[in-house]
């Protein structure tokens, strides 16, 4: 009983430690990546005792700066809601990780430990539900600032989030149909099969169109370029204009955490989760030829680190997209969401159903 609680707490500590640290490093990686792509050097000024290590001290310097800045609440606004909104942003971004499996079941000392914080039997729906609640942080931030431009920004954000949530949910239906389960660990396990004996049956193989739709919609949900109309730091003023100090920092961190959570969900649904091709619980194998046995702990370790690497890859990929594409115009954004993504997602469901029915 107590051991179970301790194990769960340990899992939470590992996952949150990973997520929060990667979020901090992402803020550095984003600057460096943009610098590389624009032929600059990028952040490298923060030094501790003469050491600069590629500007890796910048996240720490940023945090200190934000913690020591004045925390300003608009006098005409609503102080309680104004304080609540950034916490909601962090909460809804973090809670998604509760259901993402980061490894196969670990057998250790006669216990079976599923490497997933909460094995809920509603699985993906949990992600949709609590990811959708992120909407409130945006809208409440805009409303409580008592600023017309913040309010307009939050209305833009709300319209965008609602529109793309539809495409997001519909594209998930395809993957649920393909693997016949709504639980994320079942889906991850189902991706360990092989098509024709050699191609790993990952989500991207089963649902190529679904993957593109999901990834696009999920990027729209993170509110980053090319979908950053709600924020648009540089010109049209977004919903967190009236925020300063660590409350602003919470929104900022929340955005990076959303990036990681999107990367995590994409990995778990479409890129095999923790699966490594040709590595099963018994060890490395070439189908039909030979198997090299590996100890269980090593296999689990390899799988967990594979999951971590995949997540890091998608985080980096989203940075690339962010610094490559220009922003959509607002009517383009809406037309793209409603007239292109949603019909395509419906077609995807129909085709998946047809294939399922024929085979």
């Amino acid at each position, binding site marked *: 009983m107590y051991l179970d609680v301790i194990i769960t707490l340990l899992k939470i500590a590992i996952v949150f430690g990973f997520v929060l640290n990667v979020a901090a490093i992402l803020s550095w990686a984003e600057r460096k990546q943009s610098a590389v792509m624009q032929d600059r050097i990028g952040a490298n000024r923060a030094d501790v005792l003469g050491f600069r290590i590629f500007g890796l001290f910048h996240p720490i310097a940023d945090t200190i700066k934000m913690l020591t800045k004045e925390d300003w609440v608009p006098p005409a606004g609503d102080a309680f*809601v104004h304080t609540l909104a950034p916490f909601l942003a962090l909460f809804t971004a973090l809670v998604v990780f509760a259901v993402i499996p980061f490894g196969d079941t670990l057998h250790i000392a006669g216990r079976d430990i599923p490497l997933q914080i909460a094995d809920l039997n509603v699985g993906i*729906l949990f992600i949709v539900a609590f990811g959708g609640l992120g909407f409130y942080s945006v809208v409440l931030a805009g409303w409580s600032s008592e600023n017309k431009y913040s309010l307009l920004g939050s209305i833009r954000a709300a319209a965008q989030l609602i529109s793309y949530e539809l495409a997001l949910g519909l594209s998930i239906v395809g993957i649920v149909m393909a693997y016949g389960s709504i639980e994320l660990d079942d889906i991850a396990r189902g991706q360990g099969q092989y098509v024709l004996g050699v191609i790993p049956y990952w989500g991207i193989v089963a649902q190529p169109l679904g993957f593109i739709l999901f990834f696009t919609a999920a990027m729209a949900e993170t509110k980053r370029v090319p979908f950053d109309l709600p924020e648009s730091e540089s010109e049209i003023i977004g919903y967190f204009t009236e925020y300063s100090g660590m409350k602003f920092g919470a929104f900022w961190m929340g955005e990076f955490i959303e990036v990681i959570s999107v990367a995590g969900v994409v990995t778990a649904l479409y890129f095999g989760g923790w699966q490594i091709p040709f590595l099963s619980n018994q060890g490395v194998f070439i189908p039909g030829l030979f198997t090299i046995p590996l100890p269980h702990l090593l296999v689990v370790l390899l799988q967990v680190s594979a999951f971590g690497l995949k997540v890091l890859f998608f985080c980096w990929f989203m940075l690339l997209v962010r610094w490559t594409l220009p922003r959509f115009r607002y009517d383009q954004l809406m037309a793209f969401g409603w007239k292109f993504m949603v019909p395509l997602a419906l077609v995807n469901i129909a085709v998946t159903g047809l294939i399922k029915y024929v085979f």
Partner: protein
Amino acid sequence: MENLFFYIAAILAVASAGSVILQRKVMYSVLSLIVALLAVAWMYAMLSAPFLAVVQVILYAGAIMVLFLFVVMMLKYEKTEIQRFRPGLLWCMGLLVAVFFLMKLIYVINRASSLTPQVATLPPDFGSIKSLGGVLYTQYLLPVELTGILLLVAVVGVALLSGIKK
């Protein structure tokens, strides 16, 4: 343990429901109602209805309350924040009727819950999306289709109501 969780959820639900009708600011009423709905979702999950719990979060907290939030955001209306209850006699009568109704309801529920004293043993996947889908798409297929038509009618109606050009 389960008792503790139940009492937390119950207190949360009742307190925030009370706060819905007591708050002066309509925005705070909306936020309290969201908390109440989440607490009800929590209780659904404890009553072995996990799918309903998630649908409650998606549909109520994620869609219906969003509409309320939008309307409250759009309308700058300060009057009811000063006088939130109906005037004089109407207020008293409303309260009396409500309390009488509540008493009656408690009596009926007490009678009803004493009729089947034991709690049934449930299959392990009770209330999961699979079992619920099985019932919905066989036994209740016609109502499901009718609900779809109802949704369509509502979409058309709302578009007509809010899209009127003067």
